[in-house]
């Protein structure tokens, strides 16, 4: 593979390294670390399922946005206010 050997491979290669016992995964300029779970295989951090938790972040965000717009007022409190309003209006 002559094309490759001419290139500067030094900074280009990802590395798995042990730094005083810490396990470190690194990449070079503009290079990513990618986790690609399959439909049935999971990426787990400790006992946690990474994909599941990450989709929970979005669910949380959506819930928060809903609360911001529609309020986090429980139905019984809303009822109470409506009843009060009716009462006050009919006084």
């Amino acid at each position, binding site marked *: 593979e002559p094309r490759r050997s001419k290139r500067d491979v030094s900074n280009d290669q*990802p590395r798995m390294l042990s730094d005083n016992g810490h396990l470190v995964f690194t990449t070079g300029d503009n290079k990513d670390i990618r986790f690609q779970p399959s439909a049935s295989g999971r990426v787990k951090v400790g006992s946690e399922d990474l994909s599941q938790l990450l989709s929970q972040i979005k669910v949380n965000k959506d819930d928060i946005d809903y609360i911001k717009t529609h309020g986090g007022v429980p139905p019984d409190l809303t009822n109470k206010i409506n009843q009060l309003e009716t009462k006050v209006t009919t006084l």
Partner: protein
Amino acid sequence: LYKQWIPDTNYENKTNWDKGDVPCSSDRAHFPAQRKVSVFVETTHAVQEMRLPVEGEFILLSGAGFYVTSEGEPGCGAGVTTNFKDSEGLRWFDPALWQAAATLNELQQGNFLFSVHEESVPCQYDDVVFKALSSFRVDTSSSQPSSPVHTVSLLGKVFNSPSEFSQYLSSHSGHLQFHGSSAITVGNPSCDDPSGCDCGNSVNHEQICSMVTCAAVSCKKPLLPVGHCCEVCGVIATIHYSAGFNLQTYRERIRHLFLILPQYKSVQLGMSKVSKSQRFMGIIPFIASPEIQVVILDKEDGRQSEALAWDILKDARSHGSNLGITGAEFQASSGNSSDQS
């Protein structure tokens, strides 16, 4: 010249594993906890368990990586524990661990040059090469504060800036690849004298020779070439030169005229600029003009070496004026010399 470090710390190199084979899917690959190592990985490997050193790294070429299987690979066997061998003791100043060539191209083609021990390890004006697709670990300990060279190339990158290289040496990879009491420095000028330059490794003579075990010699008058650690059987030819002499051109000439001939197939010939005054240092402050030392060895008690020496002398005498050669003579371990002509 280009000097290439021979050993590597590549995962695919069978000789780096104590069971003589690269681990497969049912094997346990163990790197000793306290051995620092930078491992180069070229392809994908299955493994049952890998224990990493506490300080170490795996450099993954594109397409390289690790995976595990539940069934195992065909032909892998029941599984063994195999240990990555220790490269801790490999020293920069060990002449057996280097290959020399005049150009990068010849280095890649395997046209290596023979040299005396001092010149087998990198000289101050040399370009040092660690193979692009490899990693390594080398002990650069020296009695000198530093060991200067022209350039160092590793992982395909050429370092010629002193600051850039010293920065690399202090990186995680640098610490894993180079260790020892003194450092390699780059940026030393290359040799710009066509007649060649003094290697500069006489200051490291003892250190270099401490790595060499000399074979017993059985010739009548064993020779000790300048810059060599051992007495040898063969010939030392001396070329006196003037302006216009080009060492590299002359080295090529000798190769094309003689070394490619079948009768000289087993001959080793090394050429270097030396100052014989070194021999008398400490006794008489005697400055000799530099000359070219040609060391010729063979596997037949020096008989081929002597024949080649005569060929070289004849060539020098008939074409010397064109080559910038003013004189030539030799001394053979048989006791013969060019004086007897």
